[in-house]
């Protein structure tokens, strides 16, 4: 029977099918961080269970870490305790741990691929909804809750009902100034923030095929923002080249065997999906959000839609625009902004810093803008330096911070103050996401850069 890449990888991992219930799915890689793991370890302790496969488990501190002065003790005792707890749990259970200051430390979804932990055909979970990022490699990767973290630590398996299947096709060449972030925000604006709930997505078509691995990660990362548990892209030569030679990727004969298998990971021509959408790359322009969920996005040249033209109900829509202090029919361009955040598991990779630098090069940061530029990992930070990007940023009046999740969820001190507007390359514009009362406009690194040098929402195409 013909099957999709999702079927192939899923079925390969089913240990048992529970009658009238979920599948018991074997998990190849388990990534953990300081926020969603401590209660899982407590649970294991109280049950007297040991971690079954510490060698398949990888810990990094990211959600709660400061992005300046990482060498100093953390001021917030609760944050410090969470990091200490992760370190102790990792040590006690023989789990590799990249803590604060470690040269391999960074955001969990950035360091996984960097080290070859993420590979095609694997099942990967983490107590974080943006685990979908790893689907860019043709892996089944999804976020889980803490009870499930405990489940995977204890048994290396998770009990899940197999989701329905959706394929999203985008074909054609993206215009200048249009990035993978815009493609993702465009798709979410079409499907809505819950349009893919209950589905696992495959992204297919020439637009995704021509994307770099970094760009594909951005697309898959945002799958959860339309409700999908995960999204994946069939692995190709680009994928294989990316993973080859990395610390945890297979070597020698093992590599050859793995590669031969990975090449079979494609959706069969006559395979069917429960739902399918097709879009044209040429219809997509740089995107920006205007509301309080990632589905509330429009092309940067457009106006905020009227209530009758959106999927939200009138009360919810009015509440959202009221929070943002925007009006229906407002143009987004030239709206003044206060903060710019470049970073996160969505757009904290080297490609994103190259894009940002391409706009700010030879220009100056606007005086009214506070900019937080936060690399996704120490490896990304080193690359920024090695490629001369840091010089461009410094020259333009920007400073680089230390890696971490930072202002994406504002668990640390990187909080956007109440009422202030931030153009952010992160993934969520929920009320208060970047700090109580903060107002977030999600966008690509190019749009963020254009805003950073002009102090207002600006179409980056005028700088290209």
């Amino acid at each position, binding site marked *: 029977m013909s099957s999709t890449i999702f079927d192939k990888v899923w079925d390969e991992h089913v*240990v*048992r099918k*529970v009658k*009238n*219930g*979920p599948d*018991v799915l*074997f998990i190849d890689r388990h990534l953990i961080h300081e*926020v*969603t793991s*401590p*209660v899982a370890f407590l*649970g294991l302790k*109280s*049950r007297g269970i040991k971690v*079954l*496969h510490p060698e398949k488990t990888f810990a990094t501190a990211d*959600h709660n870490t400061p992005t300046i002065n990482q060498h100093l003790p953390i001021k917030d005792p*609760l944050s410090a*305790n969470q990091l200490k707890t992760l370190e102790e749990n990792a040590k006690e259970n023989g789990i590799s741990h990249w803590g604060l200051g470690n040269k391999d430390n960074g955001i969990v979804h950035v360091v996984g691929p960097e080290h070859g932990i993420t590979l095609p*055909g694997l099942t990967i979970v983490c*107590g*974080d*909804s943006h*685990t979908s990022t790893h689907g860019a490699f043709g892996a089944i990767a999804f*976020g889980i*809750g*803490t*009870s*499930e973290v*405990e*489940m995977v630590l*204890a*048994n*290396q398996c*998770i*009990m*899940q*009902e197999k*989701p329905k299947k959706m394929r999203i096709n985008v074909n054609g060449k993206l215009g200048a100034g249009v990035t993978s972030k815009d493609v993702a925000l465009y798709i979410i604006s079409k499907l809505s*923030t*819950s349009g893919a*709930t209950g589905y696992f997505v495959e992204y297919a078509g020439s637009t995704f095929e021509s994307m770099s691995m970094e760009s594909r990660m951005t697309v898959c990362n945002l799958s*959860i923002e339309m*409700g999908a*548990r995960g999204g994946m892209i069939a692995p190709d030569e680009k994928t294989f080249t990316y993973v080859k030679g990395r610390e945890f990727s297979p070597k020698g004969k*093992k590599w050859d065997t*793995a590669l031969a298998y990975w090449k079979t990971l494609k959706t069969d021509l006559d395979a069917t999906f429960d739902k399918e959408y097709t879009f044209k790359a040429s219809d997509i322009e740089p995107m920006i959000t205007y509301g309080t*969920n990632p589905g509330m996005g429009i092309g940067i040249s457009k106006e905020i839609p009227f209530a009758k033209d959106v999927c*939200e*109900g009138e009360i*919810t829509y009015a509440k959202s625009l009221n929070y943002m202090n925007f009006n229906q029919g407002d143009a987004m361009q030239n709206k003044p902004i206060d903060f710019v955040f470049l970073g996160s598991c969505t757009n904290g990779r080297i490609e994103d810093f190259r894009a940002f630098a391409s706009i700010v090069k030879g220009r100056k940061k606007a005086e009214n803008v506070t900019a937080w530029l936060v690399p996704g990992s120490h490896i990304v930070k080193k690359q920024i330096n090695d490629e001369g990007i840091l010089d461009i940023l410094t020259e333009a009046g920007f400073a680089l911070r230390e890696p971490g999740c930072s202002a994406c*969820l*504002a*668990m640390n001190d990187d909080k956007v103050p*109440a009422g202030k507007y931030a153009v952010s390359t992160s993934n*969520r514009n*929920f*009320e208060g996401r970047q700090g*109580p009362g903060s107002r977030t406009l999600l966008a690509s690194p190019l749009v963020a850069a254009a805003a950073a040098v002009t102090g207002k929402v600006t179409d980056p195409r005028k700088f290209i």
Partner: protein
Amino acid sequence: MAYDTFTTLKSSAYPLPIENVDTDQIIPARFLKATERKGFGDNLFRDWRYNADGTPKENFVLNNTKYSGKILVGGPNFGSGSSREHAAWAVYDFGFRCVISSFFADIFKNNCLNVGVLPVQVSESFAEKIFESIGKNANTQIEINLEKQTVTLIDLGISESFDINNYKKENMLNGFDDIDYLQNMKNEITVFSKARML
């Protein structure tokens, strides 16, 4: 962590007819710093419930003394966003044992099932009827029967059935969890694990 059993629940409810209630509203990220599962109910809907100075916002439903009960009725796409189980813990810790909505986000729904909060998905029209009834009478009684998979508006005498997979239903009726199940198939998992190449 195994939890309380759930069989039937008869209670009044808090109405929250907002769409896309996300996990950052249910529990903002700055309250995720604990290393133990306790006290999250205090910060449930923190920024909708309290002003910046800590005083309660009087018009928010959880601060309105005319409402009470162990059931929260939300708008569609309830629990979207992050995978933080803290959201489900906060709902539980506040005292809720059931959330009713016409549509749930996936991870939140799973998390609820794993912590002993029953997510009950009803039709949009039934959700409307619940909101209407509570609008007329804040003490509207709702009965959830897990065994029969029904939700009933007692005063109106109308019921609707809801879906739950049989495995999860048994778990909730008996207070078992997935780890109990998986621990009993250790050998099968070991054999499977050894056959994995990567």
